[in-house]
């Protein structure tokens, strides 16, 4: 099939940033001279913008006015304050454009190294782009499409009438409505997110996109461009003959907002042994991991996605390779013989610890990775319980875990708004008997949850602000240990400890028998 003619004049496309608009796809790297000081300053300013976008997305629905207000407020004190202003050729314009362009390319260098970093950067840049585009006037939007060679011919009424029913079924609108809409015919690879959600009619490789969905096309094109550019940059960096000024700065930048990637620090290795996991899973594991744990105990097996997500998490909390081997083997061999285990699974475990294959030292999955990629299918137990569980079932499960109503309602409403990490953070507060919304920072990594939990349980994170006893009391009314646990968090932990010890001993006897 030939798609070479799909974009009008795409082959002759002159790559240029020199459009009449501020918004652009960042195709040409800046050539101006930038001082070392500016280099860092520009990058930090853009990071503030991206961070604002990320936080806004966690707090509010992306199309809401609160979202817009929040981003505007956050941008006010940055060099990007005029970024969202309507198009006017004031004198700051060229300065702002240069800042926009330069800072984007610097961050591209800083965030190209790991998959995790690329994913974060790409996501925020895409959200920023989507937001900026949504603020543009209709005429400017059209102009933008034309200037970026994304001007597709709309399909004829005749063609439309032939596929009217299919278009209507996809858009969930009446055929009458479809008739009045403008549709474009594009290659399916240009609108992958619509394809993925099955929100577009496909025929012979063409996607029929309604005008309202064109932003999706833009995002798709931008995403592809950015992914490719980041991959190329990542490949080029090792060849960059750079003096020692920029590289350290770049790697410092990339650590800035991603937080730790929870690779295994020497100090934590061996802190956790196989027989501690049962206890820890009850006290300090986020819901996704305690779910994986109990699913494994129940089935004596986990499928690949689960083994990866759980195995790397365990590695991150300090389970050594030997202990990991012991842990997985003792459980799996309840179902299969040791020989089969060694053949089928031990490679995978050693691989995760960088002992096989390309010997990369793999890092645990972040929440973004768990939520965004590889949704669980039938028989799978991995994924994010807040995202990948039906709301009613989730509510029921949490109720059974004696999560108080106040927390529960909050968790469910966050889940419904698609803010799964926030829901997880509220869950944390409930489990750790902390006041609602006590945690200022939203969790972005299961290992962060674990560390925070350990800190809290060890008393390093005392809830100083427990000034609202009514509220915390209320949330515990369903707890069986209500009376004891109300007074002190500490006592409840101790109680858990003894319970778990008993359980552990049984478990150990069972497995070694």
């Amino acid at each position, binding site marked *: 099939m030939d798609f070479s003619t799909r974009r009008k004049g795409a082959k002759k496309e002159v790559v240029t940033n020199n459009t009449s608009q501020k918004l652009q796809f960042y195709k040409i790297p800046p050539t101006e001279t930038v001082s070392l000081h500016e280099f860092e300053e520009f990058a930090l300013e853009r990071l503030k913008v991206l961070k604002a976008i990320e936080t806004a997305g966690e707090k509010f629905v992306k199309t809401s006015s609160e979202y817009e207000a929040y981003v505007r407020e956050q941008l006010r004190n940055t060099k990007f304050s005029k970024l969202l202003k309507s198009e006017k050729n004031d004198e700051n314009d060229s300065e702002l454009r240069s800042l926009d362009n330069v800072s984007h390319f610097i961050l591209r260098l800083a965030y190209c190294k790991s998959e995790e970093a690329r994913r974060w950067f790409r996501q925020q840049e895409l959200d920023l782009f989507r937001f900026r585009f949504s603020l543009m006037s209709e005429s400017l939007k059209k102009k933008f499409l034309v200037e970026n060679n994304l001007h597709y011919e709309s399909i004829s009424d005749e063609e439309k009438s032939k596929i009217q029913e299919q278009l209507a079924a996809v858009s969930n609108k009446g055929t009458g409505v479809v008739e009045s809409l403008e549709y474009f015919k594009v290659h399916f690879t240009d609108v992958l997110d619509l394809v993925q959600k099955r929100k577009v009619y*496909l025929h012979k490789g063409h996607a029929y996109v309604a005008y309202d969905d064109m932003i999706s096309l833009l995002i798709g094109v931008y*995403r592809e461009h950015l992914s490719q550019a980041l991959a190329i940059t990542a490949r080029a960096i090792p060849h960059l003959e750079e003096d020692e000024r920029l590289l350290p700065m770049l790697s410092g930048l990339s650590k800035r907002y991603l937080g730790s990637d929870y690779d295994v620090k020497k100090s934590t290795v061996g802190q956790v042994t196989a027989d501690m996991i049962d206890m820890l899973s009850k006290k300090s594991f986020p819901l996704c991991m305690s779910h994986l744990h109990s699913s494994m105990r129940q089935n004596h097996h986990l499928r690949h996605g689960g083994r990866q997500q759980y195995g790397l998490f365990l590695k991150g909390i300090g389970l050594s390779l030997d202990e990991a081997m012991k842990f997985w083997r003792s459980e799996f061999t309840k179902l299969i013989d040791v020989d089969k285990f060694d053949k089928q699974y031990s490679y995978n475990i050693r691989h995760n610890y960088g002992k096989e294959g390309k010997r990369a030292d793999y890092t645990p999955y972040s929440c973004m990775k768990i939520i965004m990629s590889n949704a*669980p299918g039938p028989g799978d137990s991995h994924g994010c319980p807040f995202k990948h569980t039906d709301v009613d079932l989730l509510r029921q499960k949490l109720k059974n875990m004696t999560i108080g109503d106040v927390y529960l309602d909050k968790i469910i409403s966050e889940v419904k708004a698609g803010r799964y990490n926030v829901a997880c953070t509220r869950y944390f507060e409930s489990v750790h008997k902390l006041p609602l919304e006590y945690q200022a920072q939203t969790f972005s990594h299961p290992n962060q949850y674990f560390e925070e939990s350990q800190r809290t349980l060890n008393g390093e994170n005392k809830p100083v602000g427990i000034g609202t006893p009514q509220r915390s009391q209320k949330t515990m009314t369903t707890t069986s240990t209500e009376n004891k646990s109300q007074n002190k968090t500490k006592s409840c932990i101790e109680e858990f400890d003894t319970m778990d010890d008993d359980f552990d001993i049984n478990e150990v006897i069972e497995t070694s028998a």
Partner: protein
Amino acid sequence: MPEKTSSYDPESLPDLLPIYYKKLFPYGPYFRWLNYGGVEKNCFSHREFSFTLKDDIYIRYQSFSNEKDLTEEIQKRCPYKIDIGAIFSHRPKEHKTVKASSFVALKKELVFDIDMTDYDDVRSCCSGADICSKCWPLMQIAIKIIDRALRDDFGFEHLLWVYSGRRGVHCWVCDETARKLSQPGRTAIAEYLSVVKGGESQTRKVMLDDRPHPSITSAIDIVRKRFTDYAVKKQDFLGDDDKIKDVLQLIPEENVNVSKGVNHLLKSPFCIHPKTGRVCVPIDPDNVDSFDAFKVPTISEIVDELNHVEPTSEDGKRIKDYKRTSMKGYMEIFDKFLTNLEKTWKGKLIEQSGKLTYD
């Protein structure tokens, strides 16, 4: 196990493999496929193969310069299993000589791996690795649904369907667009094709709107055609129309993991399944209904056939050994696939040679 593997004995595999690789493995057509007409240079020599040798010794990053090199190495190693990986930026066997970050997977066919164990929810006859003539129709329905969607919806034309030798089927989508797909592109297609969503924590496995997507409507049509036959006669479902939703679970839940990554390996066609001894033969998607997994020849059968058939044809011309065995029919399916595929690069080669003359 209900599957009859006739005379095949897994113990004999080490003795049979050298003969198979010496006389029967179709190197010529195999190379013609993976070389893609040589339109893009390096597309064969930068391709990763991996071998599983005796005692589960697994070696990755094998690569070969040409058909001869490939043939010699396979015959020397006699792998129990061959996997095909991606086309990389450098020759995979030299990957240690380049920086890890610059050694990257560039292209690969879009692949699907449908496994019968994914249907344990809906089959009542066997489970796990077993298959029988009662549940095989599920696989046929799966092939039809995916084949239709890939062709009609996505416009792909060059689909190679391969029996995995026991309980599964693989699909290699070989169109240039498919080979060049990015990881998000692969994910999008995989998600588009999976109707059955959700792991054990999600109650409803099939989500259907009142007005399903046209692609689902087509799938339902395919299921409906086969439903009466399958559900009533073979799996003892109630034959009542309300149950059609349950049967929609038949819509393939392919192993999306394999489909998503560019850098994933998948078992090569024409391997021998070590447990059943069956050859991983191509399946003709136009005649799925007549494909019988239990009739696929085993390595012992075809090696045996070799000994009993004259090595020359009637006119005295020497013919390829595999054409003298029951692999013949399956090779015709592969040839048909290749002939169509070759049309795509013939034009390109002319275009390229034209350029040379004008320059």
